[in-house]
């Protein structure tokens, strides 16, 4: 029988635990379970416990859905589980932890790219207008 995706609840006492993603989608359709697993175990091996899920593809209302079991996450962090960076970012955005520096970085880079794009577009427009008037 396959182990349940919600976790087997079995772990060794002194092994290092991690809160991280397990990819559960299929080709071209990512979907993640947020799980507590032993750090040395591979991604698709049986996990200790599922503590949430994350759907990175926006739905019809342009929302990326995340579910988190804060009670269990608190318990596991309290018992020394490390958190992977993507999960840290999600927890930061959900207000459970401070915002991750990478979230700030992505934001300012996106803003900068947008600004650059806008300026290029306006420049092109201006050039187009100039060329039309000169003709």
């Amino acid at each position, binding site marked *: 029988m396959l182990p349940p995706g919600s976790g087997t609840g079995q772990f060794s006492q002194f092994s290092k635990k991690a809160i991280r993603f397990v990819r559960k989608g299929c080709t071209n359709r990512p979907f993640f379970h947020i799980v507590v697993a032993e750090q040395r175990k591979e991604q698709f091996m049986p996990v200790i416990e599922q503590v949430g899920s994350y759907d990175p593809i926006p739905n019809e209302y342009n929302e990326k859905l995340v579910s988190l079991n804060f009670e269990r996450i*608190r*318990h596991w*962090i*309290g*018992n*020394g589980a490390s958190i992977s960076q993507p999960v840290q970012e999600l927890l930061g955005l959900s207000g459970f*932890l*401070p915002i*991750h*520096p990478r979230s*700030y*970085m992505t934001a300012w880079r996106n803003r900068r790219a947008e600004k650059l794009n806008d300026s290029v577009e306006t420049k092109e427009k201006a050039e187009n207008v100039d060329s039309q008037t000169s003709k």
Partner: protein
Amino acid sequence: MNVITNSSKSVITTAIHIPFPQTFQSVRWARKPRWLGTAKSKLFRIPPRPVIPKEEELELRRLNNNYRTQMKSIRNYLTERYHVKYLPSSNVEQIREDFEKDFAQCNEINTKWNEEIKVLREQRIAEEINKNIEEAKKQLNEQIMLDKKNLEKAEEEVRLEKEAAKAFITPDTLEAAIEYAVNNPVDYNYAIDMEGNKIIGKDLNSSKL
């Protein structure tokens, strides 16, 4: 570089022995195997290093330092709060006392409920018994009526049979019956039309009908 490629070639010859290469041709593979080495065209390519402005680097460093400090304090707090080690130690006497107290309270409520329910239950059972008795009486009456009816039916059947039995051929009346049959032969070899009239053919001995 040459040295590396040579060594990787030697790895191929020594480590992987394929008896029938055609049987090992994969239909689809995720990535090129490690032992095929770097492509010739990419051998001396140096990927450009990411350039992070000084300002941004400092800002990131500041943010990361803050984040780590905050995480440390959160982690310490959660450890103090939730770690198995720091869970309140179990006092057996206290636990038993608490349990007994809780049990007594629950038991009291339960007894109260049981008494309330008991009244309702007895009432319900009495009603049910009355209902059952009435139902049984009704069924008994129905059964008696049915038996009576059946008896009448049977009597009627017997009477009819007795009447019919008068026409039966017994050993005593056998001779007479045979004689009657011989004297009165019956021939049904005729046709009938739509109105039911007999149409007697030429061949039939009509005198015998």
